[in-house]
């Protein structure tokens, strides 16, 4: 029996191996999505079934759990002979969403870690590549109807063989993606992170012994499961229902429904998604790994103390996704799964569990990545460009205080780019970058405020695309609080205002110089009855211009 101290020390040691891989990857990466926005994750996975042993604490939340599915698929494919077996120095590359992934842009590397001629475990990481081919630059095509339109799909293949990169595979990849000349830097960074992780893991094993570390890993899994179960005991037994809706799939303008009922039984928590909408035509499908990961990350937001480990997920049972858009199969398009559908799943989890854990769970956060893409030609610089503006929104109010304003997406941790950097890089002028006034949902503790920005095209022609959500209904209030404001997109062309048919999604709207795009992102849901709000706080919000007096009087009758 391993002693509790050695156990805790090994747990911290494994965590540091992962954190060091995360740091190395970000520091060496070229793509700003990885280097600045940390849209990547690194972890250690079981040799036998790919289950999660440890994952970096600063990895992107949506990757919690996904790599264990992709590693499991890889292990199974090697066993069945579909994929060539590994040799020392090999690193596999894979981005197939249907093999335990998210969308095509999230490219996974997996490297077996060898001890005495045997695979001890797998090291794996995911990085969001800026482009993997497909109909639109960046991969977020709002109107794709099949996987082929979304980009190059790679099954697990060896990109590195016995320590050397396979130049032929690399050339095939580069011939199918945009801005390929800088990808070599990201590929090296992604591999370098795994090699650094292998060095550090070797040191840890040399120090504590392979048998002791293996025993610790088994115990860690059991302890994480125990800790999650102890947390679940805080939830009163019963069933909790919630729904969340995606505005549309981008192709057919009808809402998609996530129907969730959560049941607390003695030793487990069951998330049943039966009754959710069937697979959709457009790219708002989710794949199984992303759906499960979305539930896991929502639970980690509620219980941040539980370590990220397969054990923590054991008591969480997810059912009823078969036949719904939350478990799409090839060739359904899936580019919206990681950024948008995942956040609606998390919202449903929050909305169900805030009923059971009113002191821990918040009202719904804005829950959209707010992806606005602009592609065009800049005549002054004589070159084509692709610009992305991602934006935050208000967080939900909670038992203790008002929601945070302009927080990042539920599934991300990334910073938005500064206006000055955007204007240096692209032919646009920001007219406004401001609080979305009045957007916080009313409540005892109101939601945080979204963002209100307006961009003017200065020169050349361009096309605007949007993949956002919460345009139809705002983030849900909780415990008597009201919904936050909806996401609003307006395109002002020749002085006329156009609202996209799908509200939050559109592709290739042509723009000329002087045309403008205005986006107002959602506010967070309110928490608690507005009648219970301290009138001094209502007055303060009016004084600071966060609500105009008339709106405040309407939302908090008798308080302003």
């Amino acid at each position, binding site marked *: 029996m391993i002693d509790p101290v050695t156990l805790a020390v090994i747990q911290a040691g494994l965590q540091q191996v992962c954190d060091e891989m995360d740091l190395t990857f970000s520091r060496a990466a*070229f793509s700003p999505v990885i280097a600045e926005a940390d849209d990547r994750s690194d972890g250690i996975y079981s040799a036998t079934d790919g289950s999660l042993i440890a994952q970096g604490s600063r990895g992107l*939340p949506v990757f919690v759990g996904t790599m264990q599915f992709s590693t499991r698929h890889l292990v199974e494919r090697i066993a069945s002979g579909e994929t060539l077996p590994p040799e020392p120095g090999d690193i596999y590359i894979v981005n197939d969403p249907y093999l335990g992934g998210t969308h095509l842009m999230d490219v996974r590397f997996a490297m077996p870690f060898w001890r005495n001629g045997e695979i001890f475990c797998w090291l794996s990481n995911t990085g969001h590549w800026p482009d993997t081919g497909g109909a639109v630059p960046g991969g977020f095509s709002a109107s794709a109807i099949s996987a082929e339109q979304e980009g190059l799909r790679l099954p697990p293949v060896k990109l590195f063989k016995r320590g050397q990169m396979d130049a032929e595979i690399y050339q095939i990849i580069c011939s199918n993606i945009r801005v390929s000349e800088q990808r070599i830097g990201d590929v090296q960074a992604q591999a370098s992170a795994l090699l650094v992780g292998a060095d550090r893991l070797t040191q840890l094993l040399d120090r504590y012994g392979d048998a002791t570390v293996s025993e610790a890993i088994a115990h860690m899994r059991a302890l994480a499961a125990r800790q999650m179960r102890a947390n679940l005991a805080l939830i009163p037994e019963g069933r909790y229902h919630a729904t969340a809706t995606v505005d549309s799939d981008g192709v057919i303008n009808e809402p998609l429904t996530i129907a969730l009922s959560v049941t607390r039984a003695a030793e487990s928590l069951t998330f049943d998604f039966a009754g959710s909408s069937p697979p959709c035509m457009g790219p708002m499908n989710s794949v199984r790994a992303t759906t499960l990961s979305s539930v896991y990350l929502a639970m980690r937001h509620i219980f941040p103390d539980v370590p990220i480990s397969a054990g923590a997920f054991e008591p969480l049972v997810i059912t009823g996704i078969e036949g719904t858009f939350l478990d799409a199969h090839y060739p359904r398009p899936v580019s919206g799964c990681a950024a948008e559908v995942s956040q609606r799943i998390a919202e449903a989890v929050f909305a169900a569990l805030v009923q059971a854990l009113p002191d821990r769970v918040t009202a719904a956060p804005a829950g959209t990545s707010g992806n606005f893409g602009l592609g065009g030609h800049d005549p002054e610089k004589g070159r084509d460009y692709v610009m992305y503006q991602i934006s935050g929104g208000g967080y939900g109010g909670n038992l203790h205080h008002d929601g945070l304003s302009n927080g990042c997406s539920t599934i991300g941790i990334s910073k938005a780019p500064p206006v000055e950097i955007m204007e240096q890089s692209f032919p646009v002028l920001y007219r406004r970058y*401001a609080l979305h006034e009045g957007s916080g949902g009313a409540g005892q503790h109101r939601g945080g405020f979204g963002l209100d920005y307006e961009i003017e095209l200065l020169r050349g022609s361009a096309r605007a695309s949007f993949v956002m959500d919460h345009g139809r209904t705002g983030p849900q209030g909780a415990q008597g609080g009201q919904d936050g404001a909806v996401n609003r997109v307006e395109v002002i062309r020749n002085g006329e205002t156009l609202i996209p048919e799908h509200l939050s999604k559109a592709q290739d709207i042509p723009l000329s110089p002087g045309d403008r795009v205005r986006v107002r992102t959602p506010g967070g849901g309110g928490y608690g009855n507005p009648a219970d709000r301290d009138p001094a706080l209502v007055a303060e919000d009016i004084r600071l211009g966060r609500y105009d007096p008339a709106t405040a009087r309407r939302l908090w009758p008798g308080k302003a």
Partner: protein
Amino acid sequence: MGNLVAGVDVGGTFTDLVILNPDTGAVRLAKVPTSLPNQAPGVLNAFDTAGADLADLALIVHGTTTTTNAVLERALCKTGLITTLGFRDVLELGRRTRPHPYGMTGTFTPVIPRDLRLEIPERMDAQGRVLTPLDETALRAAIASLLDKGCESLCIHFLHAYANPAHEIRAAEIARELWPNPYITCGHHLLSESREFERGVTAAVNAAVQPLLERYVSRLAGELRRRGYPRDLLVMNGNGGMVEASKVSREAVKTVMSGPASGVMAALATGRRAGFPNLLTYDMGGTSTDVAMIRNGRAPVSNEIEVEYAMPIHVPMVDVRTVGAGGGSIARVDAGGMLRVGPESAGSTPGPICYGRGGTRVTISDANLILGRLPPDRFGQAAEDARRALQDQIAAPLGLSVEAAAEAVIRIANTHMAGAIRMVSISLGADPRDFALFAFGGAGPLHATALARELAIPRVLIPARPGITNALGCVVADLRHDFVRTINRPLDSADMDAVHAILAAQEQEGRRLIAAERIALTGVTAEFSADMQFVGQTHLLRIPLPSATPTRAELQERFEAAYHARFRVSLPSIRANLVNLNCSVIGHRPETDLSRLIDPAHRRAIAEPTGHRTVWFGTPHETPVYWRDHLPLSATIHGPAIIEQMDTTTLIDPGCTVTLDAEANLIVSVPQ
């Protein structure tokens, strides 16, 4: 007039004073409680306690937490912001983040509230071309409105002012006609780099702490003058250099983080004299631990420090990283049965149980006490409470003895701190094994040898006065001015003549500022560096330059070598980008004799323990306890041992060996 040099550092709990005679090395020390909110009475009390006649002092150097506290507690001056139309919320919106990766809660209070942030028509584009001229009528109205609302300080922050500051300069000219005091800060003045949030917060913080610092420093300087101190008071900056009190408030934001910087300066000076040019500094206090790296006798300076969530301060500051682990970090057994230490802390109130101030949860200090590592006689009844709590909260749930439980707490805390030190050194591109560990602060020397073992660091240096290191840093610090100029061009198209001209101008300005400061110096040197990356990257690598006239080939070569050393990757197909040119001009003060920090008169002929006590290192060890002031320079002590002194306790693990150097630093050899 005398020739004594005084360093006085005001920390959260104590105000420390060191007075040193540079000719004889003679030292006087004082440690008194910090007075709050005005720190001046505490400072004067320290001088009284040390029995100092201020007329004998040639120089007083002061490290203050006035601005740090004001920022962290948001106890700021009423400050108004005038900014570009459409952008007043930049300071509140931040970069769309949240305080922690997991947990959808948190709050944020901007430096300047929304009703004091006013917009006026004006606009530059990213190239610095005027799109909308400055509306001077609107400007005057905004200034009048802010004065009307009772603002004391003014911040002017326009978009793209780094590219063309003309509007900010003109706006400040007009403001100076109308504003009743000199507290006007322009965004481009402190930081001429793009990123409107970071530049804006830096300027807003400067404006909001300027009057506070000015009032505090001038009151203190006046009081010192009244008591007979004839010279200028100097104040420590966060870059580890010092400036005259009369000038410090103009760039007040540079004093945020001055305390940790002076600790690093003391480590630098001590290490230089002791022959340790490569140090990891480890300052463990009650609630947090500060870690910094000294490489080749130099402390890295960073322009991108975030002092707390969404509070970036982008002026050159010694790169000190804070880890949330200190003597007050709380240990607990979680719901899964796993032992955890931190990040929760009992802080200084209520503090550890053993302090007897109402703490009820087991902390690192309590575990150290139970293991015999702290002197038990100082704690009395509270020691019993600590033992009982350890038994109930940790030992019983884990099925361990109290001592084994306490040891587990310490081991886990050490694992976390070692991990943090490792991450700091790796993020700065270094391997911790190539360094010596410089341990100070109240609790640093207690954990240092164990951490060194964990990190495979072969040697630990414990300075003579670990508990007053920051004050010593004030005594030994140099004059220093740092300059940053953003170029952001691919190296192959950079104008090298312009590069050389910028570096030369930076050096010249630094020398001019230092010459104006009337302080005795042994020389002035300039150091140059470039921040570089591959085109397309966002992170930077700092490349030291041998001179102000590097060739293009030299820059390319040095960058490639540094990149390969850090990431083990060569990227010959990608162009290098020259982002920043940096220059630090340093006015070197005369070397300070540190050999008498511990009075040699107290040294005994041989090292003899003052007693023994049982200390746990896996098993109980009968461990000799030495009084540090008694140790002869020739002493060699084999662990286990405890070395006590007025301001700290040093723990020497079994297997380690301690010797003393000429300045009575303890040098611990840690077997690997």
